[in-house]
Structures are given as structure tokens and as C-alpha cells.
């Protein structure tokens, strides 16, 4: 049974890759990148064998904690988790819960992210090779840590599904609940900071973390190598208990998810009110904008993308407080602009087969693109401008305002252009309307993450002139270059936006029926 689940998982991945050359290219680029990073990590871990024991322990505990945190948190913000084997879809088969859990865990470990994590974790064995006892413990603990990663991410996924099936938690609350989780990093660091008294920040943090569920498993071999068997034993127990707790919570929420099917949302609007359709211009593009903006408000899959808006300033404020300078905070505007602009990089995928309406009604590609950009711009432009000005005001960094505005505007406008093209090309599996926004569609994960990754890279290239100017402005402190950055951001950004809308429109005019066929195929597979 476990083997069947595994086979299913790889079949879905293979089939989703087969569908589009673009996705295949993105996948290959991503895989190469991943391999290079993995190679560096392995070499680094082996090299650590020759480093002082204290240093090795610090690095491994910090990095390892980061990995576990990443496994648990990243799926929530990027929908990157591999949910090929969605429990809700397996509910109809008479599978015993424990077998299902084993199957899902093994599939998770043998997933791409799982394999990478496992290799890196095993490479840490090499770090402790000078102490045989620690090396043996490292093998056991590596397995423990990888299982914690996989089970943790499955637990979060199952948790979000079972919360979802309770109507009240739907929409906004299902998003708000996870904000503290996403802020877990700063919270833990904040706690450990208040605890630590040592002058050296990082070893202190590592020591504190090693007593938490995040770092315990990683730190056992280090303590053994240092000869502190008591601490090692205690931390091993912490790691075991952590895994047991995760399994327990996962089991309970999975059981809940299996018996309570998704409830339909129920929402009523007063009759005769056509909302935004009465406000936007009565043109095809205006109608598309009104529809998209309505979806931004009503569809949790869109609302989810807005979590970053409050989070980025909070995170940056936290880290700049740590650094004792508020400079970092002033980058709130550019970062939010960058992320928001890319929020719609696969917009048509969210339409699903409803996109047939646009095809059947003969909507011109240009109107489709323009409407989608306008819907986003209506709130994104004032939002990022306000964030930029506010963060500059808080940091009292007024001389930097032009530079930051240039970066913000450049990133947002260029992003509009880029997503106008990308969303006409990239069709990825996304949760269907009404599904949990955190639940990834079958076959998503890998390809989604990679196509987003490629698009991010392209946007950085497009904004490169502004970035270079900004760096020069910061280094020289030149006010003039600051203003030039602003001008370049405005002009270049507008050019990219217009070009993107035109080009994307032309792509869509040519390929709308093909796009629709691919959307249908995705739904068929789901």
C-alpha cells in the first residue's frame, strides 16, 4: 500500500512535468540550482569536521533548526508543500489511518525536498567522524530530524485542512491563525535573546535552540562529541517527544480531515447590488478588474497572498531592532512591492476552467491583462507608497526617500509587466476555488516553487538598473542619484508594464484556447 502511494506521487510529478516544456525548463534550472546548493552544503559539513567542536555545533544546530522551521513554515506561505497524496482525496478508500500515515511519511521523505534534506542531514555525520560515538548518534539523529521535518509539514497541512472544514475558520481566520506560526522565528530568537547572557550572540542562540524541539536532534551528537552525555540524553528525549507529539497531533487532525468533508461557503449579498461592477468603467478591461478585485476580497486563495503585507514590516522591524539600526525597516516598501507584484504570476491558474468565459466571450488579451493589473494596482500602489513613506518616517531617513520610492515603484511596475506575460504562460496546479488556500493542488509543490523562483529571478533582472542606482546612492550618499533612481523606477517600470501588458495580451490572443485546454486537463487530473 505504501508502495502504491509512492508510485502515485511520482506519477503525478512526471505527468505534470510532461505537460509543458516551460515547466520542465524551470524544473531543470531549479534542480541544478538545488544540486549546487546541496553540493556546497555537503562539502561544508565535511569541512566542519576540521573546525573547532564549538563552532561546528553552533553552525549545525542553527542551520538544522532553520531547516525544521522551514519545513513547517514554508508550505504555509508559498503553498510549496507536496500535497500529491491529499488525505481528503484518499478519504474514500478504506485505508487504515496508520498505514496512510506511514505512506505519507515515506512519500514525504522520498520527495525531492525530503531527499535533499536527508542527504544534508547524513552529511552532518561526517562532521562528527572524529568521535565515533557522536557519528553513530548523528546517523540516528539525522533520521529523527528528517522525520520531524516531514511529519511536521504533514501535520501543519492536515491541521489547516481540518480547520478548513469548520466553516467559521474559513476565509480570513484560516489565514490569521498562521501569522504567529510564521513569526515563530523572531519569537524564538526573541525569547532566547532575553534568556542568554553571553556576549557571543550566535553560540548562545544555538545553545538555547538546542534545548528546543527545533534544535534538540541536531545537538545530540555535538554534546556527545563534547563528552556531555547527560545533556545529549536529555536532548535526545526532547527530540523523541517532539516527534511523538507531532505524530499525535497529525494523527488527530488527519482523522478529523478524513471524516469531515469540505463544507461549502455560504455568503449572501443584497439583491440588486453589483458591487465593484458598478464602480469600475463599463468596459471589458474594467469588468475584468472589477471581477479580479472582487476575488481578491472574497477568495481566500487571493487573500492568502496579502499575509505578507503586515508580516514584512513586522519581520524587518524585528531584525532592524536587533541590529540597532532602522535602515532595514525602510526596505519594507520595495520588498512588499516585489512580493505583491508577483502575487499574480499564475493568475489564470486561479481562474481554473472559468477562464472559458473569457475565451467564449472573445475578450481581447490586452483587456484581460490590463484588467488584472488594474485590480492589483488599485490597492497595491497606494499600499506600497504608504508603507515606504511610513517606514522612512519611523526610521527618520528622509534623505533616502527618493531612492526607496524608486525601488518600490520600479519593482511594482516591472512586476506588473512581468506577471502579465508569465500568467499567460505558466499554468500550475492550484487549489480549486473554495478549497483551503493553504492546501496545495496535486502535483503542485515542485513545479510551483520553481516557476515562481524563475519569475522572481527575472524580476530581479528587470529591476537591476534601479538596484544598482540605489546601491550607488547609498554608498555615495548622493541625493541626485537618489532622484535619478526614482525617475528610472518610474520610467523603466512604466515601460516594462506597458510592454508586458501588450506582449502578454498578444500571447493570450494567440494561445487562449490552448491555455483553456491545459486548465481543463489540470482539473481532469484533480
Amino acid at each position, binding site marked *: 500500500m505504501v508502495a502504491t502511494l509512492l508510485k502515485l506521487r511520482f506519477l503525478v510529478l512526471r505527468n505534470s512535468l510532461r505537460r509543458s516544456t516551460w515547466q520542465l525548463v524551470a524544473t531543470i534550472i531549479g534542480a541544478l540550482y538545488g544540486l549546487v546548493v546541496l553540493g556546497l552544503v555537503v562539502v561544508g559539513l565535511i569541512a566542519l569536521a576540521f573546525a573547532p567542536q564549538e563552532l561546528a555545533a553552533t553552525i549545525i544546530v542553527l542551520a538544522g533548526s532553520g531547516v525544521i522551521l522551514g519545513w513547517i513554515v514554508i508550505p504555509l506561505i508559498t503553498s510549496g508543500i507536496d500535497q500529491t497524496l491529499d488525505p481528503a482525496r484518499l478519504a474514500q478508500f478504506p485505508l487504515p489511518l496508520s498505514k496512510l500515515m506511514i505512506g505519507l511519511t515515506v512519500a514525504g521523505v522520498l520527495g525531492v525536498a525530503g531527499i535533499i534534506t536527508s542527504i544534508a542531514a547524513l552529511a552532518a555525520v561526517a562532521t562528527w567522524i572524529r568521535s565515533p560515538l557522536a557519528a553513530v548518534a548523528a546517523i540516528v539523529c539525522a533520521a529523527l530530524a528528517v522525520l520531524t521535518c516531514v511529519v511536521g509539514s504533514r501535520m501543519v497541512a492536515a491541521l489547516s485542512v481540518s480547520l478548513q472544514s469548520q466553516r467559521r475558520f474559513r476565509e480570513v481566520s484560516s489565514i490569521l491563525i498562521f501569522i504567529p506560526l510564521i513569526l515563530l522565528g523572531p519569537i524564538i530568537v526573541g525569547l532566547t535573546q532575553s534568556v542568554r547572557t553571553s556576549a557571543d550572540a550566535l553560540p548562545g542562540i544555538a545553545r538555547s535552540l538546542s534545548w528546543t524541539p527545533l534544535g534538540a536532534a541536531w545537538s545530540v551528537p555535538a554534546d556527545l562529541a563534547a563528552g556531555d552525555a547527560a545533556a545529549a540524553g536529555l536532548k535526545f528525549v526532547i527530540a523523541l517527544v517532539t516527534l511523538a507529539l507531532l505524530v499525535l497531533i497529525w494523527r488527530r487532525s488527519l482523522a478529523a480531515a478524513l471524516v469531515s468533508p469540505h463544507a461549502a461557503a455560504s455568503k449572501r449579498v443584497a439583491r440588486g447590488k453589483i458591487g465593484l461592477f458598478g464602480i469600475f468603467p463599463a468596459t471589458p478591461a474594467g469588468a475584468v478588474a472589477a471581477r479580479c478585485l472582487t476575488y481578491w476580497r472574497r*477568495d481566500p486563495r487571493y487573500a492568502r497572498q496579502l499575509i505578507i503585507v503586515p508580516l514584512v514590516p513586522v519581520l524587518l522591524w524585528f531584525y532592524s531592532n536587533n541590529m540597532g539600526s532602522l535602515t532595514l525597516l525602510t526596505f519594507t516598501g520595495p520588498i512588499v512591492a516585489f512580493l505583491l507584484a508577483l502575487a499574480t504570476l499564475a493568475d489564470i491558474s486561479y481562474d481554473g476552467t472559468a477562464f472559458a468565459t473569457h475565451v467564449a466571450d472573445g475578450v481581447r488579451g490586452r483587456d484581460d491583462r490590463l484588467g488584472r493589473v488594474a485590480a492589483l494596482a488599485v490597492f497595491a500602489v497606494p499600499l506600497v507608497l504608504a508603507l515606504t513613506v511610513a517606514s522612512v518616517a519611523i526610521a527618520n531617513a528622509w534623505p533616502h526617500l527618493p531612492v526607496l520610492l524608486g525601488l518600490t515603484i520600479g519593482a511594482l511596475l516591472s512586476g506588473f509587466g512581468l506577471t502579465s506575460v508569465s500568467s499567460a504562460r505558466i499554468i500550475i496546479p492550484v487549489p480549486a476555488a473554495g478549497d483551503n488556500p493553504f492546501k496545495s493542488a496535486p502535483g503542485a509543490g515542485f513545479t510551483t516553487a520553481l516557476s515562481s523562483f524563475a519569475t522572481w529571478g527575472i524580476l530581479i533582472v528587470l529591476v537591476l538598473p534601479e538596484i544598482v542606482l540605489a546601491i550607488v546612492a547609498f554608498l555615495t550618499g548622493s541625493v541626485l542619484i537618489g532622484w535619478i533612481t526614482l525617475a528610472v523606477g518610474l520610467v523603466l517600470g512604466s515601460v516594462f508594464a506597458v510592454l508586458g501588458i501588450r506582449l502578454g495580451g498578444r500571447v493570450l490572443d494567440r494561445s487562449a484556447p490552448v491555455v483553456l485546454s491545459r486548465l481543463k486537463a489540470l482539473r481532469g487530473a484533480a
Partner: protein
Amino acid sequence: MGGNEKGISMTSDHAVTALELRGLTKRFGDKVAVEALSLTVPTGSFYGLVGPNGAGKTTTLSMATGLLQPDAGQSFVHGIDMWQRPLEAKQLVGNLSDGVKLFDRLTGEQLVTYNGLLFGMSRDTVAERVADLLKLLDLEGAAGTLVVDYSAGMTKKIALACALVHAPKLLVLDEPFESVDPVSAANIRDMLTEYVAGGGTVIVSSHVMDLVQRMCDHVAVVSAGRVLASGTVDEVRGESSLEDRFVELVGGRHHAEGPAWLRHS
């Protein structure tokens, strides 16, 4: 698309032909869904497209209305080539397709308004027509409810309203009566008959022979991606009922018993 043929060849037929399909072909991998299918739908006819499951009805209608790129062949709507001049051709077509979703996070009223505005109509015209359509289709009470909360029949009706809002000259309806209650179905039938009397053309796909025989004046029997027979209903059915004629044409009727393991007594 067929080679050099530029597609806008105006033959005298086009004046009376609402929809003309020429050699439409579609393959999905190895499977041929529609094979060189040609069909002429005269203006002002109420045309039924019947066929067994998987006959290629939906595929044919999708290619005819510009939703699915054909591997070969052409589709003319009142003489305009759907795949050469899609924007003009689509203005003439009202389309209810089977198996696609609607933008169901909009209310019924918003959805029909959306479709009207996408066709470039003015806000006032749209508002007036939306009110008429909601009344006609008995959806006034549900106008402010999200389409996602509609029943299957209500969803069909709102999709029909979306297809009608721009007053198309040709209505292409894929399985319009599926899961619609008998009263609404009768209302819709009356409305379509009136629409045809007013000079419009309707093509409906269905596998309910009885309905087609009563409602349509023309019919085409499609199976395995080919037209087996087409013409007026009387021409096609001859002396027998449409259903008998259909079974005769399509074949596949058998009286075998089900597998033994399905019998519990």
C-alpha cells in the same frame, strides 16, 4: 488549420447558414475524438445534436465556438471564420459549455453583468437585460447569492443567462437541460422556441431523444466523432421514432446480463 485556404470565402450559402463546420478534426493523443466532421446549421433552425456518451459532441461544439483549437477544419458563424477572426465571430455566439466552471465567487447578478460588460455593452443596457433574464429564468430570488451556492440546475440557468445577455444570433448550448427541473426546462424551451421564431438559431446537444424530437426541427446524429445522419427531424427519423432510429444508427444496444458479482440475490 487547412493549409492555404484563407477561410473568408464568401459563398452564397453563408446568408442562410448560421453555423457551418467543415472537416473539423481533433485528436487527443492517439484517440481521435472528432474526425473530419462537417455540418451545416441553417439560420433560423432549432438544431439538435445527439449522440452517445463520448461521441465528441462537446469537443465539436468547443471547436465550433472557439474554445478548443481544432487540429484541422474550419468553423463559420454566419460566414465569419471562427479561427481566423475569433473576436467578430464570438460576438455572434452565445455559448453554454458543459464541463467548465463559472466565476462562481460572484453573485448570479454580478456574473451575468460581467459577461455583458465583457462583450463591450453599456452599463445601462446590461442592467436592463440582466433584470429581464433573471426574471425570465426564475432567478430573481437568488440574484444576490454567490453562484457557488447554487444548485446544479440553477447554475445551468445562470450560465444560460450569461450566454443570452449579448443577444447573440446563434446559441450553442451543450446539455442545457441537464439537472434542470421540469418547470424551468419547459420555461427555457418556450424561451428558445420564441428566440428561434424571432430569427435566432439554436444548436443544442443532448442525449434525451424525446426532448430533441419534440423541440428541434433539425437533428444530427453523431457517433465516434462522425456525423451518421443529419437533416430535418422527419428526414432523419423516417417512419420510426428518433430514439429507435438513433439506436439503429449508433448500435451497441445489448441485453447481456451484468457480471455475476454484481448480483446479490
